[in-house]
């Protein structure tokens, strides 16, 4: 059932998923997933609504811990470190694995404070370090030119696209190894979407990116690897090029050609 086509070479693996199952109470949302996510590349998750993409993404930074009655089984390794263990320091983990949400969620603070939030809570207060980080991250998120004159005004006054780029800047400010993005463009117009896509192309030089998307073209454009999920199962995982042109599974074929979903 898990047919892994053309698995990425072993030495480049950053996240190694071994037989992960996930339960919301009695409800099993993920079924025995196996997946190896390569470093400094972009991996896209596709699949119909409710198939468990977000659930799986949130397993990687243990965001599901917040949900009462949720339970994870199996093994999930980040650079060889077991994540599915009560001894994991989730705060340190989340600094290594950043997340950008579907609905942009800037804090009710200034743009400046938003970007350096992760540094502040880590105890960094050196003004020059903070200033430098703000400029570097906003530049990387292609937002600097638009906001450099109003860094100290509220982040909630930005447009939706600007907010999403701010959230990306905020997540790269703590220098994570992996950035998880859950439908980052779903609330954005095509222009803003293409800016974020350019940004992802840029960021994957430096970070490992895992992106959930409903947009096939987007998956094809930005990702190196694509995983197709269906009803909590990983149906197919392979090089994006391959998966979109010659899918191994009929279900994948049907989904990407829009015949079901």
């Amino acid at each position, binding site marked *: 059932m898990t047919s892994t086509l053309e698995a990425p070479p072993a030495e480049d693996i950053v996240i190694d998923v071994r037989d992960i199952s996930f339960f919301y109470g009695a409800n099993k949302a993920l079924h025995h997933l196996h997946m190896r996510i390569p470093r400094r590349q972009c991996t896209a998750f596709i699949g119909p609504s409710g198939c468990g993409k977000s659930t799986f993404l949130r397993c990687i*930074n243990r*965001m599901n811990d*917040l949900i009462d009655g949720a339970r994870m089984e199996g093994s999930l390794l980040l650079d060889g470190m077991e994540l599915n263990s009560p001894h994991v320091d989730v*705060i*340190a983990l*989340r*600094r290594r694995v*950043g*997340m950008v*949400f579907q*609905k942009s*969620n*800037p*804090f*009710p*603070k200034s743009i400046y404070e938003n970007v350096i*939030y*992760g540094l*502040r*809570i*880590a105890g960094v207060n050196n003004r020059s370090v903070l200033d430098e980080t703000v400029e570097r991250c906003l530049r990387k998120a292609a937002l600097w030119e638009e906001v450099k004159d109003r860094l100290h005004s*509220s982040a*909630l*006054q930005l447009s939706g696209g600007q907010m999403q780029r701010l*959230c990306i800047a*905020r*997540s790269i400010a*703590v220098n994570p190894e992996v950035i998880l993005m859950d439908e980052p463009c779903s609330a954005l117009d095509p222009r803003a979407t293409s800016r974020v896509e350019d940004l992802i192309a840029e960021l994957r030089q430096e970070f490992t990116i895992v992106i959930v998307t409903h947009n096939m073209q987007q998956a094809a454009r930005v990702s190196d690897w694509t995983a197709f999920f269906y009803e909590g199962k990983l149906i197919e995982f392979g090089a994006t090029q391959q998966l979109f042109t010659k899918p191994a599974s009929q279900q994948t074929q049907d989904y990407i050609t829009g015949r079901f979903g």
Partner: protein
Amino acid sequence: MNLPHHKFGDTRPAGETGVWLTSMGLAIGLFMVLALLALIVANGLSVFWPKPVLELHLKPGSASVLRDQTVIGGIVTRTRDRMVPLAEGKAVEREWHLQVGNKDVYGQGFRYVAINDALKTEYPADAMVVERMEYGHAVGRPLSLALPDGRTVAAGDAGFSPALHDALRGVRALRGELRQVEKKAIGRINHAMTQLRLNPDKLASPDGRAEQAELQKRYDVLAADALRIRGELEKGSLSIALFTGEQRAIPLGQIVHFHFPNRMTTPEKVGFFLHGLKGFVADDPREANTEGGIFPAIFGTFVMTLLMSIAVMPFGILAAIYLREYAKQGWFTRSVRISVNNLAGVPSIVFGVFGLGFFVYFTGGTIDQLFFSKSLPTPTFGTGGIIWAALTLALMTVPVVIVSTEEALAAVPRGTREGSLALGASKWQTIYRVVLPAAAPGIMTGLVLAMARGAGEVAPLMLVGVVKLAPSLPIDDLFPFIHLDRKFMHLGFHIYDLGFQSPDSDAARPMVFATTLFLIALVVLLNLGAIVIRERLRRKYATGAF
């Protein structure tokens, strides 16, 4: 979309009845609030507007005759209709409520006069109203002024009014000096003496005895000084003739203020009004609170409400944070929440009884035994005081703060919290840095509600520290400056005291309205302060979600 009533050709806009019904509700509510405000503002402010003095010539032998005199005078404060039983049926008789003043002569400062008993009325230009330290107003015609230096000025002289003004300026200066000596300087020495007396070891030592002698010497000097000033204040007098014919000499030291209401121009009246308003806000009360100002009550209410806010904020907010963010949601939190909501509905007097039993007797008594045992049996904290009043009201208003804080916390979007946690923030960091700032405007709303409830509460205060006349303010220049153990005056209690406990209800009546006006003004002011802070916060975070 095809709504059913469109099919039946009904073109009335949907919900029209609803619009009428709801707008009626709003209109009635608004009308009642405006009527209340208008009544209080009109009644409260009219107290300070100078009213003319009426001279009446009465029918000889009529019931209105005062001390066998047919000529009387006074200020008409209001008119009323009275049913008088006749041989057959009843008749309505219209009466004036007349402030005749001169309580020292007439025994009563107010009386009713049947309008029908008046043969002739006029407003004499030389009618004079003199506000005195005691016995209320004197109303009459000026005769002459005997100045402290022995000169006399006749009332007809052009220099009469200026001379009286000058003399009163001197009197005011003397009175200020007297207050300085009696309240401040002697008060400070008394304080030092009490401190010394509470320390028997020191008192027994030669040092202590020397200090005591020194204090006594200073006290004697000051007491002599006070006596001299009092003597000065006895000098000089104003002679007036009452409308009923008696002549009286009022010592200048007794006079607070005088005016000739019947010949005042409008600007003069405005000046009088403003002066009266200012005096009301800034002066101490006199004569069982029926005269003078309400400054100690305003100040007491203000300080008490502030202390209450300081006490209620941390408890309410911390409790709400625990309930909403940390506690496992279940039957326990649910029942705590229900209890908190019910607590808000408990009658305030119950909190007063609790405050008396727990704060005053238990906590205060324990503090006295531990730290102030030397001054026992005189209680320090073991009796009503501003701190106990503030804590009692804080307890009473804490449910309001908890409920609104919980609501504000719940309104912070889940995404915002997750965003913070995803960046490696701990739960407390998330609450402290993201959730609380976002919820701050909503929390301030809770404080506004709590303050409004607390500032207007009277019943529990009567048990835990409010008094009708406090000898000193809760904050002054004596170390340690903020005296949390002191009893205090409160506008709400002041209104109650004036309205129900005053020996002279006629004199107290206008003060009730004026004091109510200031209570409302103070509550509005405090709330405005909190609202301004809230708007600041809101603009700072630009959430606008509350």
